[in-house]
């Protein structure tokens, strides 16, 4: 068997380079932002510029009964329902409960191979027929939910 020495050396170098290149590649993992959450901030109804935190807050999804629990917070991030254009939530402060329904138009957008698809929410509106207890007013600051950096909704109590 005769193979000139430089061929073997060349192949080994190439194989080593190939291994190096493919193993040092950035992993195809999801690093882009995906579906944003609804951001709600709680304000003082009597002093509307100031945040007012809630000691004991439970948020229940009316369609499934799942509950999110928060303690001593003035800001919450809520994952909306991506299967429908509606998300009805019961906000329970200590023992008082108010029901708020959010309506929106969903847009499914392709992100990347590793991340798949995300949902953006447009034309956010809120149904405030059943806020008789602790919630005094609700204001929509941003109708477009495309990221969760700043608040979309203010709740005054």
């Amino acid at each position, binding site marked *: *068997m*005769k*193979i*000139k020495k430089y*061929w073997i050396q*060349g*192949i080994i170098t*190439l*194989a080593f*380079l*190939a291994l190096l*290149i*493919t193993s040092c*590649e*950035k992993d*195809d993992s*999801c690093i882009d932002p*995906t*579906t944003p*959450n609804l951001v709600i901030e709680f304000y003082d109804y009597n002093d509307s510029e100031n945040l007012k935190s809630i000691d004991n807050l439970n948020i229940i*999804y009316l*369609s*499934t009964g*799942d509950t*999110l629990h928060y303690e001593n917070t003035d800001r919450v991030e809520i*994952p909306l*329902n*991506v*299967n429908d254009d509606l*998300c009805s939530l019961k906000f329970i402060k200590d023992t008082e409960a108010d029901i708020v329904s959010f309506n929106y138009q969903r847009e*499914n*957008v*392709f*992100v*990347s*191979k*590793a*991340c*798949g*698809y*995300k*949902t953006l929410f447009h034309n956010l509106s809120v149904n405030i027929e059943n806020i008789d207890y602790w919630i005094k007013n609700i204001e929509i600051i941003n109708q477009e939910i495309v990221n969760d950096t700043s608040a979309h909704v203010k709740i005054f109590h």
Partner: protein
Amino acid sequence: MLKYFIKILPIILSINLSAQQQDSLKINSDTIFSHKHQPVKIRFGFDIGKYVWAQLNDSESYDFYVDANFYKNYYLIFIAGYEDHLKESSLLTYHTTGNYYKIGIDYNIYENWLDMDNDITIGVRYAYAGFDYLLNNYRINQPGAVITPEINEVNEYFENLNAQWFDFTAKIQAETFKNVYLGYAVSLKYLISYSHPEDFAVLYIPGFFERNSYSNFGFGMQYFISYRLKF
């Protein structure tokens, strides 16, 4: 896809024909060497590894090649393939359907003893693939979702996509039975261009394999079986 095949085929055939003429001229000067009279070697091969793996994964893959020894240790190789590849994951399920063609030159670095006809070759190929995606369904990516995102059946087509790349391949083939060869190849691939479909991305390329979103490099391995014709 058929039109591409028709365009490339006459070019390949004409190269093969002219190569044969060159070889017959060389035979006289070649008698100085201890090689026997070398008939024109043409080999047909089939990638059996890919075929079997695809069958086991709800996919189809047919990869054929033809190579001809046109000058001393140089081979001209032409590869054509068809794939219907299913990719299923928790986020996306889609089919890739398409053809690919590669043309290249391989150099044999192995010198056979007497009657043996094995090779170890290294080569470069230029490859072109034309393909479509059928996006069957997807599930929205919502970290921390309380209401589980449902699977959206969309069955959306992304058509007329293409990609081009270079393949650097090292291949080893051994003659097992008379005129039947078994081979193994490894390739380092480098993408030079690809389509940018609206609202989607190039994820899998027939003939190239999975595409890493952050790199143009790819890697492949093949197990193939081939048969040689002598003229």
